[in-house]
């Protein structure tokens, strides 16, 4: 309603839709992985809005990377915990 610029959420949805042809051509298993990445970017929409970057998609990519790295940290901790149990 009466916005000069689309909100970051609207922009996100546009971007996601813009990749629908790309997604369609992927294998089913890859499609699911791609969905995961978009879900990851969604976790940081508030921060992306606040950043008010001229190219929000860069922020979305960084958000994906961020969640990916959180996952790595979490898995590494688990591996270390498991490793110490069997040492």
């Amino acid at each position: 309603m009466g916005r000069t610029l689309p909100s970051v959420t609207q922009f996100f949805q546009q971007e996601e839709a813009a990749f629908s042809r790309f997604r369609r051509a992927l294998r089913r298993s890859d499609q699911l992985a791609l969905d995961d990445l978009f879900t990851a970017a969604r976790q940081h929409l508030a921060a992306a809005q606040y950043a008010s970057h001229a190219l929000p998609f860069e922020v979305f990519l960084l958000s994906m990377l961020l969640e990916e790295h959180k996952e790595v940290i979490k898995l590494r901790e688990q591996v270390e915990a498991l490793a110490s149990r069997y040492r």
Partner: protein
Amino acid sequence: MKKIITGWLFDVYPNETNLTVWIIGEDGQRYRLVQDFAASLYAAGSSPRLRELWKWLENQPIPTRLSREERKDVFKGMVTVLAVKVLQPSRLDELFRNMAATFPDLTYYDADISPSLRYAAAFNVFPLARCRVEVWGEKVESITPLDTPWDLEPEPAPLRILSLEPDCDPAHGLPKSVTVAHGRVRYSLLPEERTQLLVCLRAELHRYDPDVILTSWGDTWLMPFLIEACRERGVTSSLNRDESLSVVERKEHTYFSYGQIVYRGRQVQLRGRWHLDRHNAMLWNDYGLDGVLEMARLTRQPVQEAARLSPGTGISSMQFVTALQSGILIPWHKHQAETPKTALDLLRSDMGGMVYQPTIGLHRDVAEIDFVSMYPGIMVRFNISPEVPRAKNDLEPAEGEPGIVPMTLAPLLNKRMALKSALLSLHRWDCRRPAYHARASAEKWLLVTCFGYLGYKNARFGRIEAHEAVTAYGREALLRAKEAAEDLDYEILHMNVDGLWVRKKGCNTPADFEALLADISDRTGLPISLDGVYRWVVFLPSRVNERVPVPNRYFGVFQDGSIKVRGIEARRRDTAPFIAETQMGILNILSKAPDADALKDVLPKAQDFIRKQLALLRAGQVPLEKLLVAQKLSRELGEYSSPSPAARAARQMQAVGKTVSPGQRVRFLFTLGKPGVCAWDVPERPDARRIDVPHYRTLFDRAVQTVLAPIQQSVAGGVDSECLYLFPIKKDNPLLVTNG
């Protein structure tokens, strides 16, 4: 002969020549007085045009007094204006219409302010103000207020209230009886016996002489019905106490506002009495008569207007009074355009409040802390007003005199804070509590809308840059609060414009959070308060994608056992009451658990309850009223390409000759077979056997799962708030465990 009356100002409205002023005296008398009152409007423009206007006005039949003055336009500074004093306030509209049509090129000020509002500003009075009035014969010589709208506990006026209550919604068909009640008197009249009804009502109006006629559906049905009945018999209705004037009727209309279609029913207002319709009063359910009176006192609009106006009009009239009293011109039309901005500026400023994505799941010992009336607080503290130039750095108060917006808001904000703190100290059973609550919520609505009006292009004292400055400071304050919390090792679970949900191991009493509150208040300069500490709270994911959090769908139980829900079915107005009750019933049972660990003890009880409710639904024992769904019609019926259930129900109403406008709620039941719905507001009652039980079952299950699934998950796994892996290896959704 000179007389002095002390009492309450009841109503003010224009008559043929001057103003009629009603006073309820301390002696119990109702005084109808008159007062001379001149209303001024101003015109600005080139000198030759103003001279022409002057000549034109001198030839008008309406008496005026003309002068040249210098006055203040907040956007342009001092301007030379032609002041037109109209000696008969009731004819100002007529004069102005002609004037604006003949001289469309001039700029007009103070042109469309109602006489009641001008009167309130001129004598600093308001509806139900206690006043001291000097009277000569029938004429008011002077009126002095003895209290202010900001008093926490004004002396209540001794109002005589007569209530008229039809036995059913007239939308269904003609009510069989109308209950008349006042004090201990209570009896029924039959609308079918029109003559008898009129005679009895007339006698009652004479005998009891009420100040207020409180009705249900009075605007839409009862009053028009009575007026029509009187007209048929050629008698006066005596609904008005002031018999020199006729009843004021306004037509219904539909308009579009903030992405929503809004429907306003027709209105019937009385003179010398108030007519209040419970169903047409804005927000009556929120704050009742106490709130309506408070709204009138604060906004200074006559009570019958105040009951029906939107908070936006209310805040505007408060600003008008501030402007009138401080000699600031109120532009008739606004001419301020948005100042040019660079693309980057626009990118930075065109944002709302900050809304976070919460951490999905159940969390224990969570504190919810809120900034108190954040946006109005920012406007007052940082002097944000359309006419005040912004400080270079947006995060510092603007210099200079307080602007019109902070001047209007400051007393309102203070009163709300005082009421809130008074509420905290009142005993749970104190009889003043409901009235305090009603007043505080009336103020809340005004404060909430004042922010929107700051950015509204048609608001006389609105400007988008001021609006943006408020949200910018709001975001800054929230981020500073987040940083304060994280510096003190709190975990942020959620943030939403003016509130934060935080948690820290070992913190579960209000005292544990005091240091944090002090720190936030210190860093932001804004008052902040602890809304409460939750025993547990659940943030729900989106319906569409269970891994995507949504900001405003959560429920939880505070330490005192009270429940807070947002965005779930029970809060939604289009949920059938039976389903909402079931959901709240489950939450009630869950709230009996003293902490999250004890949830497993109450879970069986909740499941029992669900089974019982389900059995009722299956056996068809749920009263039809409780299965009603009320949805808004979003457009004209002809415009639907695939009609929604509401539209299909509206068509059925149309078929029996009822009109439904966009914005109106349509009540209906889901039924078996075509067309799948059955409108409620038609004379014929649907057959209970036709209810679409499977459809209601689906809705029921969904509502039950919303609250139960996260609890079961917590009880079963024990890892409740342990953040789910964002990329789960198994594709099952941890939150949607099916109900075994």
